[in-house]
């Protein structure tokens, strides 16, 4: 036969909660009430943090911030499902992952207030800094995963990136390497529809980002990223595959970036209020909260209490950051493994000139 089929494949999309917040009976991960309550608390806490970080910038008390509103389910769940020893390579939009992994929010505010020491990674878990060069962090995950495999420590690496980042060569090269060596690496793409003003249809011409996995021999799946039950299901599978030595998974979580790209951006310039309103119907504050209420996980009283506690924690974190004082001399630290003679000279000159 002169013509044979070399490859055939298809890509699935998973969702669990329907529009009226009823879970699919087959796919419902049947999470315990305790787990669901903790998840809810963390998602509320993160949303309060997000709003506060924007407010501080607007008041001139901190600098550029990239909000994650709409993407909490992905980040908070991964934070809860990973072991502290697993590694993450997040982007600038993953502050909620840090918070879910146990970061001190006060330290995050110190970073947003533009202090050098704010760059210290505030987590006790294995996490890379929030990476700003778009897409670049995707290429570090396979290296970490390779090291884990070589050391035989069962650790998993999760790399986070957006629809825009999926256009960078780094992501493709990383998937290829991870696939060839069957690495315990999870490629976590949050497709929030926009890369600043660029709609995702300018990033890819196919039906999804998830399907790109197929051509690299990677498992690829799309999931409703604003449905925590669906996301739990999909991420759990990916984790099991990674820990069982079955290789990498690419997850494309469909979300929406409700806020501006950053505090320097005005999304009204490029998208309509109607579009935002349509996506808002999918947000976890609707469907998922209804599901939690229907299942007796939360009620009005619990919700009010969770809200209050979250606001108090965020305020406490801001207060901590407000009292932080730094010195510009910190810029001379951590350049090399030990201070160099020339840099030490520059530092002394600096201290003398500015009396610091």
């Amino acid at each position, binding site marked *: 036969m002169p013509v044979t089929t070399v490859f055939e494949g298809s890509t699935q999309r998973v969702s669990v909660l329907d529009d009226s917040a009823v879970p699919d009976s087959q796919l419902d991960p049947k999470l315990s009430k305790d787990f669901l309550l903790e998840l809810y608390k963390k998602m509320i806490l993160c949303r309060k943090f997000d709003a506060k970080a924007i407010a501080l910038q607007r008041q001139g008390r901190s*600098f*550029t911030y990239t909000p994650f509103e709409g993407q909490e389910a992905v980040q908070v769940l991964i934070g809860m499902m990973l072991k502290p020893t697993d590694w993450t390579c997040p982007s*600038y939009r993953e502050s909620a992952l840090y918070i879910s992994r146990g970061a001190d929010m006060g330290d995050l505010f110190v*970073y947003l*207030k*533009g*202090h*050098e020491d*704010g*760059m210290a990674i505030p987590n006790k878990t294995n996490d890379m800094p929030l990476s*700003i*060069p*778009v*897409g*670049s962090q995707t290429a570090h995950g396979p290296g970490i995963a390779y090291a884990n495999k070589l050391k035989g420590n069962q650790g998993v690496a999760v790399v986070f990136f957006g629809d*825009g*980042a999926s*256009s*960078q*060569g780094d992501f493709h090269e990383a998937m290829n390497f991870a696939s060839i060596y069957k690495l315990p690496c999870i490629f976590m793409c949050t497709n929030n529809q926009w*890369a*600043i*003003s*660029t709609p995702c249809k*300018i*990033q*890819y011409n196919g039906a999804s980002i998830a399907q790109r996995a197929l051509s690299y021999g990677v498992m690829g799946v799309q999931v409703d990223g604003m449905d925590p039950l669906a996301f739990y299901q999909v991420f759990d599978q990916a984790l099991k595959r990674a820990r069982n030595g079955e290789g990498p998974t690419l997850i494309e979580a469909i979300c929406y970036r409700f806020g501006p790209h950053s505090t*320097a*951006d005005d999304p009204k*310039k*490029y998208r309509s209020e109607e579009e935002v309103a349509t996506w808002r119907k999918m947000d976890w504050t609707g469907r998922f909260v209804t599901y939690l209420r229907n299942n007796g996980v939360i009620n009005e009283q619990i919700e009010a209490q969770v809200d209050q506690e979250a606001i108090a924690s965020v305020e406490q974190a801001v207060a901590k950051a407000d009292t932080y004082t*730094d010195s*510009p001399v*910190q*810029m*001379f630290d951590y*350049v090399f493994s030990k201070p*160099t003679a*020339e*840099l030490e000279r*520059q*530092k002394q000159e*600096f201290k003398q*000139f*500015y009396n610091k």
Partner: protein
Amino acid sequence: MTLMSVIQAINSAMAYELERDSNVVLLGEDVGYEGGVFRATDGLQAKFGKQRVIDTPLAEENIIATSIGMAVAGLRPIAEIQFSGFVGVGYNHLVNHAARLRYRSRGKIKIPMVVRAPHGGGIRALEHHCECIEGTYAQVPGLVVATPSNPVDARGMLSAAIRGDDPVLFLEPTRLYRAVKAEVPDGDFTVPLGEAKVVEEGDSVTLVSWGPMMKNTSTAAAEAKNSGINCEVIDLRTISPLDSTDLVLKSVQKTGRLVVVQEAPKSFGPAAEIIARINERAFDYLQAPPMRVTGYDTQLPLGTNEDFFIPDPARILSTIKKASSY
């Protein structure tokens, strides 16, 4: 003449060149519909269409590589890289291909392309958005590195860069985008690349700088004047090829003293190159060791402390005084 800010001048140069030559195209992230994150390309897609003002996928390496292909085949691409720190994503193509193809083809292939990027600190932005990169690229043979410091030069130099037949890295002074306005010539107007300019005459100390540092440098020169030190202030404008040594040399022959102001980290930058050339060619005229005021050999700090890194008028003035009283 029209009163313009730097960003308006850049927009106006691109609009003029897109109108003038149908081979000119513009591409980059968010440059079309949005008109650029700094609005440098505002209105250009509406005017010249989606085929010539192209919103690209998010991939700097590809933006630069595609521009090379376009240039090879007869277009004159202007590639916008959103922030200076991300020019490096396309480093391989800029350095190993764009800058080299004329030499590699013994003149058969030319690469008339411009890579534009906002450049320099002082805007309280995130990491990688503000670093000074001119030194890194100035070492690359075949690549022009230019940086205007005011609206007039911004319009004239960008037009010259677009019309020229060499690849140009055009570094735009971000913190001056909207900080200064000037009367800019209308119509056909270019400022040739490779030429520095004496912006203020003086006979006590030669003061050389470029790009966004010109503002602090001029402020320091004005303060020096109050202390009776008349600085001759030179705006380098084109970093590489550094063909303006003669202008600096002539000035140093007059003043006998040289201070170079550079925002980038101290070591291995253009300031070192300028000082080396003056040492080589004007040693006998020098009455003081040539000096430099620069950033430090560390990372540009985050928002709170970045102004401590960027040479401020006080630091520049103190070095001017040191040079003049040596």
